[in-house]
């Protein structure tokens, strides 16, 4: 009489949902996982996943309309703050973070009433908070570490190589600060760039191989007067240091070596 056995097996098969990337892609995958009522699910982006043994792979196409509805639903259930925390956590691109977010969302969407708030005693929820803070911390650092060079045509350009996908978090800051200028911030790790022109901000893809690999190479694209100012900056940097207070440990904590290569004052 054990007729439902095959069904149980098929439900318990571990599944990985693979989507094209981005927040909309992720939310579409969440809806799909929910619709299929699959208990064991991982969610991963197309570029960055490896299938595990005995795992069923399903691909999901981004459905912007569905994603928007899902986002509205999450915002209604737990507020804009938590929605933006989830967004920032996904931008961390930490391994497995998408599946963690899915586990938390599954609970919320299934039996959540609005206004429940986050329960940070739950390890998954805390992991999301921690990932979001990592991303936001790095974005805050890069509000300072982005270095613009002036091209001969007067536009400003910068190359960065952050650990997390922070371009969209940087956009409002730089758009507010330099509203008159044309500028561009390229992410050398992800081959994407943030472009500001006449008040419009866009995220475009670029060929990572075409981007300079360190600050000297960035400088070689700049105008002559620009190189003069970079030199003045290095002078300032050297002379504002107090040698009697040298503290390499503190420097390494505040300005990790991984960020040096695009900083003209530290070089690679």
């Amino acid at each position, binding site marked *: 009489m054990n007729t439902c056995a095959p069904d149980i097996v098929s439900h318990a098969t571990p599944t990985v949902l693979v989507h094209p990337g981005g927040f909309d892609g992720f939310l579409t995958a969440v809806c799909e996982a929910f619709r299929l009522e699959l208990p064991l699910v991982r969610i991963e982006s197309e570029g960055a996943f490896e299938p595990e043994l005995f795992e069923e792979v399903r691909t999901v196409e981004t459905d912007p309309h569905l994603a928007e509805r899902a986002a509205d639903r999450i915002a209604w259930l737990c507020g804009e703050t938590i929605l933006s925390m989830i967004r920032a956590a996904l931008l961390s691109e930490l391994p497995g973070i998408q599946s963690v977010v899915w586990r938390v969302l599954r609970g919320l969407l299934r039996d959540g009433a609005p206004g429940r708030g986050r329960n940070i005693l739950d390890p998954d929820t805390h992991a999301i908070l921690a990932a979001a803070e990592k991303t936001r911390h790095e974005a805050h650092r890069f509000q300072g570490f982005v270095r613009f060079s002036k091209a001969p045509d007067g536009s400003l350009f910068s190359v960065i190589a952050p650990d997390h996908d922070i371009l969209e978090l940087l956009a409002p800051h730089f758009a507010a600060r330099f509203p008159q200028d044309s500028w561009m911030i390229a992410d050398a790790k992800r081959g994407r760039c943030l472009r500001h022109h006449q008040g419009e901000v866009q995220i475009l893809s670029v060929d990572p191989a075409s981007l300079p690999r360190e600050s000297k190479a960035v400088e070689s694209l700049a105008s002559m007067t620009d190189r003069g100012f970079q030199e*003045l900056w290095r002078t*300032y940097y050297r*002379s504002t240091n*107090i040698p009697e*207070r040298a503290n390499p440990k503190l420097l390494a904590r*505040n*300005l990790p070596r991984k960020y040096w290569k695009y900083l003209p004052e530290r070089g690679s």
Partner: protein
Amino acid sequence: MQDKLKILSAAAKYDVSCSSSGSTRSTPKGGMGNGEASGICHTFTDDGRCVSLLKILLSNVCLFDCAYCSNRRSNDIPRATFRPSEVVNLTLEFYRRNLIEGLFLSSGIFGSVDTTMEALVAVARTLRVQHRFGGYIHLKTIPGASPDLVAQAGLYADRLSVNIEIPSEEGLKHLAPEKDYASVFTPMNSIHQGILEHKAESRISRHAPRFSPAGQSTQLIVGASPETDLQILSLASGLYGRQQLKRVYYSGYIPVNRDSRLPLVARPPLRRENRLYQADWLMRFYKFQFDELVDDLHPDLDPDLDPKAAWALRHPERFPVDVNHADLETILRVPGIGVKSAKLIVEGRRHGTVRMEHLQRFGVVLKRARPFLYDPFAVGLHRDFRPERIRPLLAAPPESTQLSLFPSPLLLTA
């Protein structure tokens, strides 16, 4: 230009204030630059300090002869003076490349006190009015400057500061014959007055001009004169209370001059400076009073213990603390628990019991906190609260590896 910049930035570097926080100025129409409330560090020097502003002197020519200052009249050093347009241009070009948050402008006293102050104000005015610059401007107020000029400075600057430098008036008069406390406190009080008046106005009209929106700060040199930590912290506490200063900076004395009035020191007193910053932090963010940290019996902070741990060990009657029931202020007083983790604890316990594993995840340093916490699973242990046993767990290693336990708060922009 290279040489000028080299001289006038090296001459300004002993002023440790470098924060760019507290301003929410929005970008002027047709202009560039805004204030970021949390402050932004653009790079860090080899000493690990945050570089946020272009910190320079307009001139290092000085009529005064303060014993502790490298720019004093009697020193034979290369002198230079910027043209105002050079400072303006450098600020704008650096800002556009995102190298800085703005300008920190100070100066040696050339001509008279008021001519100097007027020149500083003129640079700020040009940046704000002519170039519609919205970035951060920190202006140094020259001790003894006229109230009228200070009032003008407040309209263009985000932050004003007057340096007290020496934490007692006798000390200051001894080391800086041209200065006294009146010349420092008069401008400081008039800035405070200006901030209060403009705040009152802005409650009536949102078009009221803003006056030094990021408040004012000052600097105390530590170790150049014989004051105790008790004297220094009670002065600082008064400044936070009466003049409502945003920050008091402590600068470990570095001998830049040979002078019989000054002590001979081999190295700057960095650990003492660090302890003072920790105490300052406790006063501003943990609701400690200065006389809880130092008193007549303990006039100096313990160099081997951070001031919070020292306070906790002197007060065994306040521990252990039960994080599941204590109020936020009590939790904040536990060594190893910071503002962020304390808030997470209070948020988390609404959903269940906060256990040791949660504390660890919230960033509590359990090694330090555990002796002070009530742990239902460790019955009997916490009854045996003996400060002399706990102390070795918390003490820092001897001076040679200084500053390893905590980052100096000087580096955090706040």
